[in-house]
């Protein structure tokens, strides 16, 4: 049974993954969703954020807590006017610490772990390796889910060139460590020094030629030694990658795509929606974020704005005659302000029209489409998140319910 509201989705799933292109408000939407779930539905709700704005991290009590999940204290929620039925927990992804954990866990023995952790390539690789962030985010999610400690985990996804890369990250990591290329690279060192090179099969010859001429022998050897140690963790990686993959496709997991109604993010959102469907992930909801209020497309308001611009002087005369107060007594000033008001409205109306056009273009929307209006201020506190939550859950004010 597909959920027909975000509330139903929250009540029926264990993992909700938020994706979308950079700068669309994914992190705050994810946090708002978790807060709404904790306040209205109860249970233990965790939001796993990747790179929250500092004030948002502060609001969630995440400052300087590294990798551990922290509970947002009830009195903090109460001070924001919220009466939670459940518990809100928050965690931030610390890539470095997570990688270190992973090595400790998967390495066959402490000595190998130590060799990996102290290798001078390790830092570079874990912080810069393709999809290192993506992989570690999925790892952490899996771990947190496996503890069984949470009724719902809401997860933000890392910013990357293709925001769906994280879905492939576990498999790619497994492929990487299981791949023939890694074997070729490490064969000479596996067997011992240069003598082993004779055992390298014919197909790998161009590899050595090119790699050696580009990188130099010494660098190649450094890399090979590192991967030789890393490879000892292969089985652990593969097992884990399969488990993560399984969790992502599990009916208990749903995806939410967040977008603004701007050209580039929207095109990316359309791509996500299509891709998630094709790959048989459960697309739960689409959140249209920072949408201009309906007033910008209201014909009566547009007509009033037109009159302000077109008949500014006549209207100013009427106003000056009817109200002798100092502020509106100067017809020139009133006419100027009326024109400014009308022009400002028209400016935003152009943007609102574009938003409506994009929204109408969505061919097959998911069952749940939620609109969150643009707010004057950046959302950075629990009150603001609760306000977003109001729209996410369909207009129920969290402070009164």
């Amino acid at each position, binding site marked *: 049974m597909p959920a027909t509201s975000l509330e139903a989705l929250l009540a029926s799933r264990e993992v909700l993954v938020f994706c979308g*292109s*950079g*700068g669309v408000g994914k992190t705050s939407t994810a946090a708002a969703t978790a807060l709404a779930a904790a306040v209205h539905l109860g249970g233990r709700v965790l939001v796993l954020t990747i790179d929250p*704005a*500092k004030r948002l991290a502060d609001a969630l009590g995440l400052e300087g807590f590294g990798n551990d999940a922290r509970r947002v204290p009830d009195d903090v929620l109460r001070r924001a006017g919220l009466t939670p039925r459940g518990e809100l927990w928050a965690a931030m992804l610390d890539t470095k610490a997570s990688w270190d954990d992973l090595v400790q866990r998967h390495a066959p023995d402490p000595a190998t772990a130590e060799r990996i952790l102290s290798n001078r*390539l390790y830092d*570079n690789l874990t912080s*810069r*390796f393709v999809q290192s962030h993506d992989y570690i985010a999925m790892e952490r999610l899996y771990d947190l889910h496996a503890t069984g400690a949470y009724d719902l985990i809401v997860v933000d996804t890392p*910013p990357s*060139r293709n925001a769906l890369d994280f879905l492939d990250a576990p498999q790619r990591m497994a492929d990487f460590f299981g791949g023939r*290329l890694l074997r070729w*690279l490490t064969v000479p060192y596996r067997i011992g020094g240069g003598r082993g090179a004779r055992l390298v099969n014919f197909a790998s010859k*161009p590899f050595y030629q*090119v790699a050696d*001429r*580009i*990188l*130099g022998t*010494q*660098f190649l050897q450094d*890399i090979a030694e590192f991967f030789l140690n890393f490879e000892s963790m292969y089985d652990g990686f593969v097992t884990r990658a399969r488990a993560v993959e399984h969790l992502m496709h599990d009916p208990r997991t749903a995806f939410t795509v967040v977008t603004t109604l701007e050209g*580039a993010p929207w095109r990316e959102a359309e791509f996500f929606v299509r891709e998630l469907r094709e790959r048989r992930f459960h697309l739960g909801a689409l959140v249209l974020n920072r949408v201009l*209020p309906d*007033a*910008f497309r*209201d014909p*009566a*308001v*547009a*007509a*009033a704005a037109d*009159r*302000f611009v077109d008949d500014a002087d006549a*209207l100013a005369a009427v*106003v000056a005659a*009817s*109200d002798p107060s100092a*502020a*509106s007594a*100067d017809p020139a*000033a009133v006419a*100027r*302000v*009326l024109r400014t*008001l*009308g022009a*400002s*409205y028209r*400016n935003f109306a*152009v*943007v609102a*029209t*574009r938003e409506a*056009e994009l929204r109408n273009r969505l061919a097959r929307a998911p069952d749940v489409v939620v609109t969150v209006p*643009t707010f*004057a*201020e*950046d959302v*950075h506190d629990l009150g603001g998140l609760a306000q977003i939550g109001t729209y996410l859950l369909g207009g129920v004010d969290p402070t009164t319910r």
Partner: protein
Amino acid sequence: MPGLLDRRLLFVTGKGGVGKSTVTAALALLAAERGKRVLLVEVDAKGNLTNLFEHPAVGFEPREVHPGVFAMQLDTEASLREYLKLNLRIPVVGRIGPIANVFDFVANAAPGVKEILIVGKVCWEVRESVEGRAPWDLVIVDAAATGHVLAQLDAPRTIRDLVQTGPIRNQTEWMLDILSDPALTALNVVTAPEEMPVNETIELVERAATGSTVPLGAVVVNRVLPEPFTTADEVVFEALAAEPVRSTLEASVGPGVDGVFDAARLAVAMRRSRVVHLDHLRRAVDLPLLLVPYLFVRDHGLRVTRMVAEALAAELGE
């Protein structure tokens, strides 16, 4: 110090969603309109930079997408092919598929290798043009996003520090000469007056100033909302929106007046909340700030690129 557009190599970075590509394209357009021959390089290829000139996507070979603006898309395989041909004298005929796969593997695993091919190609174009063998007056690069740009630009130094000997190390010195010369090169950051973009910009500028080889140029603040009213006019606005004037206006104009007032309040509040971030940026960053207004437009194309170019021209004032 030469003016921004009088240098030879401009990198443009920014957080996702702030309009990095639009500003990059606008800088190229502006330089071309000032008579320069510009090579516009798309690195983090989404392949949509040329849309901003209403031109189809381009490949590795530069194509003139607008008078004076030549665009190319840098991809690692093509860079590798050229690098092997030019520097290692390895003839590469046809597709280098298998070798590229192998290389991709090493490049992904070895820090800085992929990046140095990208930065190396860019530097090569600059060196060739400075020495009169390539036609560019200015090379503008739509570089990686804020979080990755320094890793990208500092790749030659990373390689130099990590690799003791070998051919790739030997390539790093001349690249570093170009990258670190403030008369030639500048890293520019595009941002928006919002919390995250501003914080990322401040952080990047600090890291670049202390730990990077590449000199900083300017910060472009995109999407600056206009201040709708002067302080005096705001008093008038409040009087119009309050009774009895509101009812007078409603009687003349119709029921839409409240919607117009609400819209104005939203515009004022949005502007106010963003000014805070702009002020924060101004205080924290000691670089020229170029402000580009929020453009109330339907979608992006050459017309919008030109509007941004005009705003940049006014800010640069050269």
